[in-house]
């Protein structure tokens, strides 16, 4: 049994959100620079140049990369031999988010009631927290700041098993095509295949945090990722949706066992400002 003060979790969450809102991970920055290098359309180059210059602007000013600093999402993978001390784990995560968004001068974008009041909570909480228990005594925190320009374009398709690989590819390409310019392409696409109505989107969202260039370990799913990326980029939607060679930077797929009668497919679209980082306590 390992004792872990919740204040450690709070500090880690605060640090992660301060970091990700100001800096994308090196794999994304490199992919964006490659997209600029190979682009031939002058308008798309105008856009991609601004986006790569934006990294330096954020670093020099401390401003967030995007004014939509998103909804704070935390995947907590907790070793079952950890005992949290000194208070509530959930409240510690919330406090970490609150600290980061206030200290970082990030936009507070959360309203308490989705339908009637829509009153801003003022500190970007509550966060979305996904908890899973695993053997061991470490705690892994994956933090994501999800902007809603791209979240609004994410989709769930409850496909029949007979839809097969073509059905999955179709779902992915349809989601990206219909989203067009709205989610700020170039996008990163997470695909969750199988599970059920709520686990497919969870897999898809998590998949958007996989580093660019890392394929699924199963060769069949890796090939599916390649095919999906190729088909998406054939659409020529391009950066900002104004026409160009790079519509998506990467496609990551995850799968899970499912029911004999179904094949849920979730497509989580994440903008180029894909802000996520992980730490282990």
């Amino acid at each position, binding site marked *: 049994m390992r004792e872990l003060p919740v204040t450690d979790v709070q500090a880690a969450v605060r640090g992660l959100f301060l970091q990700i809102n100001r800096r994308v991970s090196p794999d994304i920055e490199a992919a964006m620079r490659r997209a600029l290098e190979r682009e031939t359309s002058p308008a798309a180059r*105008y856009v991609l140049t601004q986006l790569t210059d934006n990294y330096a602007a954020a670093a020099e000013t401390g401003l967030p990369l*995007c004014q939509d600093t998103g909804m704070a999402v935390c995947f907590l993978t907790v070793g079952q031999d950890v005992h949290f001390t000194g208070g509530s784990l959930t409240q510690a995560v919330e406090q970490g988010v609150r600290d980061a968004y206030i200290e970082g001068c990030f936009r507070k974008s959360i309203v308490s009631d989705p339908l009637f009041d829509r009153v801003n909570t003022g500190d970007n909480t509550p966060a979305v927290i996904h908890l899973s228990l695993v053997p061991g005594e470490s705690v892994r925190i994956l933090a994501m700041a999800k902007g809603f320009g791209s979240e609004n374009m994410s989709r769930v398709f409850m496909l029949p098993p007979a839809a097969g690989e073509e059905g999955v590819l179709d779902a992915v390409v349809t989601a990206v095509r219909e989203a067009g310019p709205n989610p700020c392409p170039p996008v990163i696409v997470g695909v969750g295949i199988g599970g059920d109505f709520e686990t497919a989107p969870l897999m898809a969202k998590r998949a958007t945090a996989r580093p660019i260039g890392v394929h699924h370990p199963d060769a069949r799913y890796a090939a599916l990722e390649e095919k999906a990326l190729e088909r998406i980029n054939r659409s020529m939607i391009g950066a900002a949706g104004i026409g160009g060679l790079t519509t998506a930077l990467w496609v990551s797929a995850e799968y899970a066992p499912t029911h004999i009668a179904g094949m849920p497919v979730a497509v989580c679209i994440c903008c180029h400002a894909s802000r996520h980082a992980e730490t282990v306590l």
Partner: protein
Amino acid sequence: MIRDLTLPLHKPAALPLRAGDLVTLSGVLYTARDAAHKRLINLLREGKPLPFPLKDQVIYYVGPSPAPAGLPIGSAGPTTSYRMDSYTPELLSLGLGGMIGKGRRSPEVIEAMRRYGAVYFGATGGAAALLARSVLSCEVIAFPDLGPEAVRRLTVERFPAIVLIDSMGNNLYEIGPAACTRRAER
């Protein structure tokens, strides 16, 4: 080639612009997004004056992040425009000269743009820290209770933008990808 335009956007400058033109904008513009649009339309319904003039002015769909000490504004990139579509034709009919945002517009908005000679500009979504550098000053002029959604008057200098839909209804979201596809097939 990049064209430098001055705001407000008078008709002789607006009408020759074509979808795909790369521009910079300098001068005064006003910010408004979802909640502010709703309030502007409510003011019109009640016959009350608007907090800023519409004639030839440009509205930027943005909800900036808070300004840290020493900077006029926080990060300030565009939000997705379709959520303003139901309000836009009425504002265009009252003289609004243009909008800056990102994403597609409804056929009703495009029709009103053609009728009244307005232009829809795209700013780069996610280039928000860079775009903030083009903002020289920022002042909340209405609805301060709306926080990031309050109406602000911005003075901008060489703010980079692209003409997405021109006053003839040409739409870069259609023309751009189609042109790239043709080029790839050649």
